[in-house]
């Protein structure tokens, strides 16, 4: 699922899109509601939502005349997968130093 994670990474690189994701943590919202609460125009919110949806981070559904957007739980799971990779990076870096001649072992008594 590495490619999926990369899509999300790219989607979240934009501060406006991070703000939208944060706003959706409170619950499903319509485009107009998001635009009212954020310093982003309605067309821009729509565009950002399109990117977030393509990345699997948000899902939408029609409700009456409105379209409601919510965070996509599977997308969140992919984010967790990314943190998973962060720990892999960290442990590898740790192992490199632990085994490095630059950090010699002290003689054990």
């Amino acid at each position, binding site marked *: 699922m590495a490619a999926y994670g990369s899509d999300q990474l790219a989607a979240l690189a934009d501060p406006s899109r*991070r703000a939208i*994701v944060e706003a959706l*943590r409170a619950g499903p919202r319509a485009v107009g509601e998001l635009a009212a609460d954020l310093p982003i125009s309605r067309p821009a919110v729509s565009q950002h939502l399109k990117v977030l949806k393509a990345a699997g981070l948000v899902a939408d559904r029609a409700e009456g005349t409105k379209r409601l957007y919510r965070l996509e739980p599977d997308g969140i799971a992919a*984010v967790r997968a990314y*943190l998973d990779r*962060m720990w892999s990076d960290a442990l590898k870096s740790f192992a490199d*130093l*632990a085994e490095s001649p630059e950090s010699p072992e002290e003689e054990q008594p």
Partner: protein
Amino acid sequence: MTLEPIRKTITVACSREHAFKTYTEAFDSWWPREHHIGQGDLAEAVLEPKPGGRWYERTTDGSECDWGEVLVWEPPARVVLTWRIDGDWKVDPDPAHASEIEVRFVEEGPRSTRVELEHRAFERHGETAAKVHDGVSGDGGHGGLLKLFAEKAVA
């Protein structure tokens, strides 16, 4: 959706004592520089090697941000850290809202140590896992993970 703990294992060619000291006392020397919270570049990542010790970062602008604290200190076998960064990517001082990272050091030989890492209890950061599953009420601590994710993106 239950949020399974993250589990990692790596075997290093050194004694358990050395592995433990490297992980804790030399934390700054190996922590990947791109993983941090503050706006500036990471100047120092510190894990105070004692029970109740702070675990924090200092960025080049001099500001510090707590990641958590040392919950369990059992050299050279085990260290448990809390992760206090909440869904808003701020420090939540309530220990009940912190997830945990346990690192175990298991001796496999005089020069071989298995290091087992587990990052667990993500649900403590806020909303319950059930709510996450419903997709009704946000993502609690996962907002923090999103930010972490974003940090990497802009790094």
